[in-house]
């Protein structure tokens, strides 16, 4: 099996599996006052320290959630609840993941003033394009770090700086699901007030995410109850998965640069293998994260190519896996020509992939291009 769909989810690492087991053995409730509970609390505390260190923030600024979707919803609805009566403008981009786009759509229905910034004709978003919409009434700017469909890296450092210059009270949220532990950055570098991250994109299991909220930024919780996570996210903590998330982070942090180089070389190889081939277009340029590569093969339907590759043991996704067959509006936002929109597959890598994997993929793609029925 050649798995090239790491932006959808990743294989669970041994370190994460062991950490899950450890978390199952330490079965106590961290809120219990006795020793059994204390053991669980220790794991939780250590995990929080690990995540905080990786993000370069204080422990108390990190909250565990069930997934990045929950993290982003918490920021967007939490900010609207806390400040919506005084300020009601929300600025975002048209290339966000649905976990940001949909809660913003919902707030628009409830009367918020939403501005969505599209990439320019070159498929880029510049700080000015965002900042020019910021006014005294602006509550929140939500802008992803790395796009999940093309790998495009948004200049969030400069975007958030420009935003803060216009209105320092604006809450800056960054969806870092595709960049955390892949690009080297700390929360301070980005200038973000809130950051969403996910465990299962980092070889931890599905069902755990985290949210960074800078101290001083006031959000209201989505979930009320027993007051866990500093009262910000009630519900007994998922110790095994939180422990696994921390273990994966610990394993990956020291190798960010090394893995980046490996994956960059893989991307280069893929691009070289396919460059100059007729009717094949690589939609992810040099301003993109090497982990995500969008490839179009003219006139061959994405799903057809996907299932063809699958028959050769190669697993990729069409557009974005979260939207299961839905046409990608995001790709058209990146100015990918119409003729390629229906014909795009996404290759997403991890450092475990090899040059042979890339060669096998390219060969299969070219074979498929030759034999598969084309759209007329």
């Amino acid at each position, binding site marked *: 099996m050649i798995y090239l769909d790491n932006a959808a989810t990743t294989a669970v690492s041994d370190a994460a599996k062991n950490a899950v087991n450890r978390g199952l053995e330490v079965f106590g409730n961290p809120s219990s006052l006795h020793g059994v509970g204390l053991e669980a609390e220790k794991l939780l505390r250590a995990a929080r320290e690990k995540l905080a260190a990786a993000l370069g923030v204080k422990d108390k600024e990190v909250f565990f959630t069930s997934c990045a979707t929950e993290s982003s919803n918490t920021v967007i609805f939490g900010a609207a609840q806390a400040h919506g009566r005084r300020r009601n403008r929300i600025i975002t981009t048209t290339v966000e993941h649905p976990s940001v786009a949909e809660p913003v759509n919902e707030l628009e229905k409830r009367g918020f003033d939403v501005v969505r910034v599209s990439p320019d004709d070159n498929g880029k978003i510049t700080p000015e394009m965002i900042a020019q919409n910021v006014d005294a009434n602006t509550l929140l700017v939500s802008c992803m770090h790395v796009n999940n469909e093309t790998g495009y890296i948004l200049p969030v450092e400069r975007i958030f700086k420009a935003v803060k210059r216009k209105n320092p009270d604006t809450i800056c949220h960054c969806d870092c699901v595709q960049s955390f532990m892949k690009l080297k950055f700390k929360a301070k570098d980005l200038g973000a007030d809130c950051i969403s991250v996910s465990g299962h994109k980092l070889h931890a299991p599905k069902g755990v995410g985290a949210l960074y909220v800078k101290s001083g930024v006031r959000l209201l919780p989505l979930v009320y109850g027993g007051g866990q996570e500093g009262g910000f996210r009630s519900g007994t903590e998922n110790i095994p998965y939180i422990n696994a998330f921390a273990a994966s982070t610990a394993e990956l942090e020291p190798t960010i640069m090394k893995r980046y180089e490996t994956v960059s070389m893989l991307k280069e190889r893929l691009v070289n293998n396919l460059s100059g081939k007729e009717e094949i277009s690589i939609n992810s340029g040099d301003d993109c994260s090497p982990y995500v590569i969008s490839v179009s093969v003219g006139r061959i*339907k994405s*799903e*057809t*190519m*996907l*299932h*063809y590759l*699958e*028959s050769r043991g190669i697993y990729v996704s069409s557009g974005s896996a979260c939207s299961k*067959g839905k046409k990608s509006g995001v790709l058209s936002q990146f100015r990918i020509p119409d003729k390629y929109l229906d014909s795009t597959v996404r290759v997403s890598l991890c450092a475990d992939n090899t040059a042979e994997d890339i060669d096998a993929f390219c060969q299969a793609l070219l074979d498929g291009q030759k*034999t*598969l*029925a*084309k*759209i*007329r």
Partner: protein
Amino acid sequence: MKEIVLCKYGEIALKGLNKNTFEAVMVKNIKHRLRDMGKIEYSRSQSTLYIEPVDDVDMDELVDRLRKVYGIAKLCRAKKIEKSMDAVLSKETTDYFDESLENAKTFKVFAKRSDKHFALKSPEICREMGHVILERYPHLSVDVHDPDVTVTVEIRETNAFVHAKALDGAGGIPIGTSGRALLLLSGGIDSPVAGCMIAKRGAQIQAVHFEAPPYTSERARLKVERLAQIMAGYCGDIKFHCVPFTKIQEAIRDNCKEEFFTIIMRRLMMEIAVKIAEKEDIQCLVTGESLGQVASQTMYAMVCTDAVSTLPVFRPCIGMDKSEIVEISRKIDTFETSIEPYEDCCTVFTPKHPKTRPTLKDVEKEQQRFDFAPLVETAVNDTRTYYINAD
């Protein structure tokens, strides 16, 4: 409280000397459908089947399953009581109808006395029972012509039964009394409806599905299997034939004119279906086609497809509007599954401008550009066959 279910036959009751055969098949079907529900006793009398659970069974589930058995016109849950007027008139008995009576304005009592030795005659039973009900539910009045609720009292050999509400059964005649049919099952809305309509007229259904990976996905096939599973609730276990069709699709694309793609594809599907039908001793093909719905469902197109079939091709949806087909698919509960959006990449084989008025001569000429026979043979040989049972 002991509850039983009374199933009233519809058409079977009119079958004259064949009635017993039909009845026996229906009872066999019912027993098969209820086989995992615990010990149940069956008895027949006067065009009614009495289904009496011995063990404690889930009566809601039992009734749900029975409502899908073809051959039953009406069914009602009844309370089994001691054969005495005291029992008939007891509060416990009227309580059994409490909900129906509370919500009604008018009622009547209907009595049936198959045990002629019972002390009271039917009209007397009605009078007594009516009196008791009026005393306990003073808001009601009697209406013998168009009552909201009809309370029925049946006095039989060993026991009495009372019931108030008849439910509609699935109607039709029992599966297995009209031969075998092979349904071309696509995954859309129409074909499951067509299959159930033919099954309702007593046919044993088998299904054939054509898959074309990588243009169709495994999820699409699983969806079709789920549809077959829902249908099996009505049609009984379904023998499912899954035909690998990719090579044929590609050969059509490579060798024939675009405007003929769909019609030639349909003809080859029919050809394969006929071959499977012959192996399985099946007497007809069934499709979900509705006249004029799409280009391949015009009268002209059907002339061309039927030309390859040596068996009759039944199209029970032929004269129905989409909305009517949807209505039935909701009733048999296949609609929600049919509309699940799994990308069907067969659209790459769909001509932009298909021929709506093909002539058989032109189609045959176009099809002769390539010798499909070996591919058809391989497809039939590589067909995977398995059973899909009701859940």
